[in-house]
C-alpha cells in the first residue's frame, strides 16, 4: 500500500517541542502531555508555553510534574483525522515516557490497523528529525516497510547529546538512568549525556559550562561529515544566548548541513532537564 502526505497523517506528542506541527506540514498533528504545578494542570505547549513555563519555574516553589496523554486523548486525535487513510504516531522514547503506550492502547481500541505507533527512542528535536525523514518519503510516496526501515536506521544512527546545568531535575523526575553515577554537583561539574536506545546515558563530565558546550561541539564534529544530508537540530531550556553561540559554531563546522530544528524545550522536557539544558540532535539521511 502506497503512503503519501495526502493519505497519511503524522501525530507527534508535545515533547517533540513543536508547538504547531500543522504549520510545518499540513498532515501533522499534536497530542499534548501534561505538566502539573501544584494543583494546576496544563497541556504541554498548548495551555502553557515554554517561555511562561520557565517564568513559572523561577517564581514557584512547587516542583512541576509531567504526565503522559491518556489513551482517550489519542483516540480523540485519531477521530479528528478520519480524512486520512493512515496515521503514523512518531513519539518520545517509551523508556522515558508512557506516551507511546497510551497511543498503542488507543490504536488497539480502534480494532483496525489504521494507526501505527512508532517509538522514536528519541526526544524533542530528535523526534522531529525522524518525523521529517518520514515526511520526505511520504511527499514522494512510500510504503510502511520503507518507513519502518528509516525508523530502524534512525534508532541506530541518530545522535542526541545534551548537557544539563544540574542533574537534579533528571534525578527528581526519575529519568537519570545510568547517569546517576556522574554526580559531582558540588563543583559545577557538567555532565555530557546522550540518549541511547531510548535511555539517558552518561558520556562524560567536564568542569564548567564552557567546556560542556565545547565538548558537545567536539563530539558533533567527531560524529558528523558536512553535507546537505546531515540534518541537525538544537534546543535549549532558558539558555537562548548560549544556543545562538552553539548554532553559530555548528554553521561554521558544518556549513552545508541542514539545520532543521531550533527551539526552546517545552514544559515537559524542561521539567526533566531543568533550566540550562542544551540539546543537540543529528541524523544523516540521503533522502
Amino acid at each position, binding site marked *: 500500500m502506497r503512503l503519501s502526505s495526502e493519505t497519511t497523517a503524522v501525530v507527534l506528542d508535545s515533547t517533540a517541542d513543536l508547538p504547531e506541527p500543522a504549520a510545518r506540514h499540513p498532515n501533522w498533528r499534536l497530542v499534548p502531555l501534561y505538566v502539573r504545578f501544584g494543583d494546576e494542570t496544563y497541556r504541554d505547549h498548548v495551555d502553557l508555553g515554554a517561555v511562561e513555563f520557565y517564568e513559572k519555574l523561577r517564581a514557584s516553589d512547587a516542583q512541576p510534574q509531567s504526565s503522559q496523554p491518556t489513551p482517550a486523548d489519542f483516540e480523540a486525535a485519531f477521530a479528528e483525522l478520519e480524512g486520512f487513510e493512515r496515521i503514523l504516531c512518531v513519539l518520545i522514547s517509551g523508556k522515558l515516557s508512557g506516551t507511546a503506550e497510551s497511543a498503542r492502547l488507543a490504536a488497539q481500541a480502534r480494532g483496525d490497523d489504521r494507526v501505527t505507533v512508532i517509538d522514536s527512542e528519541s526526544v524533542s528535536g530528535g523526534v522531529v528529525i525522524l518525523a521529517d525523514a518520514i515526511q520526505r518519503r511520504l511527499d514522494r510516496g512510500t510504503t510502511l516497510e520503507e518507513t519502518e526501515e528509516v525508523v530502524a536506521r534512525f534508532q541506530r544512527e541518530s545522535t542526541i547529546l545534551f548537557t544539563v546545568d544540574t542533574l537534579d531535575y533528571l534525578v527528581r523526575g526519575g529519568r537519570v538512568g545510568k547517569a*546517576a553515577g556522574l554526580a559531582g554537583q558540588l*563543583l559545577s561539574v557538567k555532565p555530557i549525556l546522550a540518549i541511547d536506545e531510548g535511555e539517558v546515558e552518561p558520556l562524560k563530565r567536564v568542569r564548567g*559550562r564552557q567546556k560542556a558546550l565545547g565538548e558537545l561541539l567536539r563530539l558533533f564534529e567527531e560524529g558528523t561529515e558536512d553535507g546537505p544530508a546531515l540534518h541537525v537540530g538544537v534546543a535549549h531550556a532558558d539558555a537562548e544566548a548560549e544556543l545562538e553561540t552553539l548554532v553559530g559554531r555548528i554553521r561554521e563546522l558544518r556549513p552545508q548541513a541542514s539545520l532543521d530544528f531550533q527551539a526552546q524545550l517545552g514544559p515537559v522536557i524542561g521539567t526533566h532537564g531543568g533550566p540550562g539544558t542544551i540539546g543537540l540532535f543529528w541524523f544523516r539521511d540521503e533522502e
Partner: protein
Amino acid sequence: MPGGALTVVEAALAALEASRRRIDDLNVYPVPDGDTGTNMTMTVRAVRDALAGATELDAEAELALVARSCLMGARGNSGVILSQLVRGAVEGLNGGPETAGDLAPRLRGASDAGYAAVREPQEGTMLTVARELAERAEALDPALPLGDALAEVVAHGEVALARTQEQLDVLRDAGVVDAGGAGVLELVRGIAALVRGEPLPEPEVGTGPLPEEAVHRELSRYRYCTSFFVEGEEVAPDALERELGAFGDSLLVVGARGAVKVHVHTDEPGRAIALATSVGVIEEVSIENMHVQTAVREERITHSGPPPSTAGPAATAVVAVVAGAGNARLFRDLGAAAIVEGGQTMNPPTSQLLQAIDGLDAAGAVLLPNNKNVILAAEQAAAEAGKPVEVVETTSMQAGLAALVPFDAAAALDENAREMREAATAVRSGAVAPASRAATIDGIEVAEGEFLGLADGAAVAAGASVEEVARAVAAHLLEPGADVLTILLGDGAPSVNGLRDELAEAHPALEIDVHEGGQPHYPLLFAAE
C-alpha cells in the same frame, strides 16, 4: 653488635625521637612543609612495634620483618625512602657486623636501594647523606672494629649533612640543612651510641611518647583538641596532668618541671588555658574542633563513594589522599570511593593506602596522592596491592579534583588513568600559605608571619594580607585564560566575597566556585581550568 634487632631499632628510634622536633623545623620551604622528623619517627616506631609484638623469630625472619614493617609503616616521602634504605641495609645481612669491612656493604646496600627508589635522585637530600656514609665506611680499614667505624661514619655524616645546604638551592635560600638527611644521621648516631656503649641522646622537651596524630585517632567524647606549650618556674607536669584530667581526655603532658607541652581533648579549652596561664607563660596555643573531622570519618565509613549506578563491582575505583573535611566531601561527590586523610603535614603510611585499596569493590584502583610527599608511598602501595593500581601523580588536591572530573567507574583502569592524568595536567594550581620563616623564593621576599602566594609551583607574591596575596595569585592563574576558578577555603580563611565579586566583574565569562575545603596550613587553594 650487641642485642637483637629490637635493641638496635630502639637505639635508632631513641636518637630520632630526640631530634624529631628539630628535624620537623628544618623545613626546606618557607611554608609548613612535610613533618619529616615526625614521619621518620613514626616509620621507625612501626618497626619497633612490629618487632616488640613478634615472638620466636629466627634471625632471617626478624630481618624480613624489619624491612616489611618499615615499608608498611612508612609515612611520607622521607619515610618511604627510609624504608628503602633499611631494606637495602638488611638485605643479605648474615650475622651482626663486627668491623668496618662488614659495615660498608650494609651502608652501600642502603644507599643503592635509596637511589633506586627515587625516579630522579637529587643531591643535597637524605640520599646524599646515605651515600656519603657508605663511601666513608668503604674508605676505612676493613679491620677497624664496628664501634670505631660507626664513630668515623657519624663524624663524616655531620660534614655531609652540613654540605646539603650548598647542594640544593631551596635549602640554601632557606638557610637550612636537609631534614631527611638529618634524620638518617640521627638513626646511625643512635646505633653508634648503642654499639659503643654510650648513653643514648635525651629526648628534647616537647616530644612525647605518643605523637599527637595517634591521639587524634582515639575517639573522644570531647569537642576541642587543645594544645599549648607552657613555661614557668611553677609549671609542674604532675599537677597539670591531674587537674586537666578532671575535664579532658587523650591527655599528654610532656616535659620537665618548668617547661611542658600539653595536649588535651576537652569541652572547656578556655579552662585548660586558664589553668596554664595561672602557673606560667603559654605559647603555641592550638584549639581545634574535632567533631567536624569525626563526622567526616564516620560518614566515610558508613557511605563510601557515590550511590552505585550499576549493579556489581566497578571496573575502577579511586582512593584519594585528602586534607580537610570539606575537601573530602568534594572528592566523594566526584566519585572517590575511599578517602585517606593526609596531606602536607600528615603523610599517610603505605599500609593505610594499601588498606584503602584492598577495601575497594573494584577490579582496579586509581590512587590520587595529591601531594608530592605522598607519591612515593602511593607507588609502594601500588606495587604491594592485590589488584592493579595506577598512581595518577597529582601533587595538589586541586589537581586531584580536576583528575576526578573525567573519572568513570565503569571504564577500564588504564583508560581512566590516561584521562585523569590528562585532566590533572590541564589544571593550574595556586595557594596562599603563611611563611614559617623569612626567605627569598623565586625572587619573592617574604617575612616570617607574612603570606606567600604560589601559582604553578612558583612564588608570585608575598605580603601581610591574605586578600592582597590572593588577588595576585588569582591574577597569575587567570592570565592565560580560564573557564572556571575554584577557591578552597582552608582553616582560618578570610572571606573571599570581595575578591570573588572583583573577579566576576573583571572576567564576566568566568565561573567562580568557592568551597569550604577545611585544609590546614593553606588559608586558600586555587585551581584554574
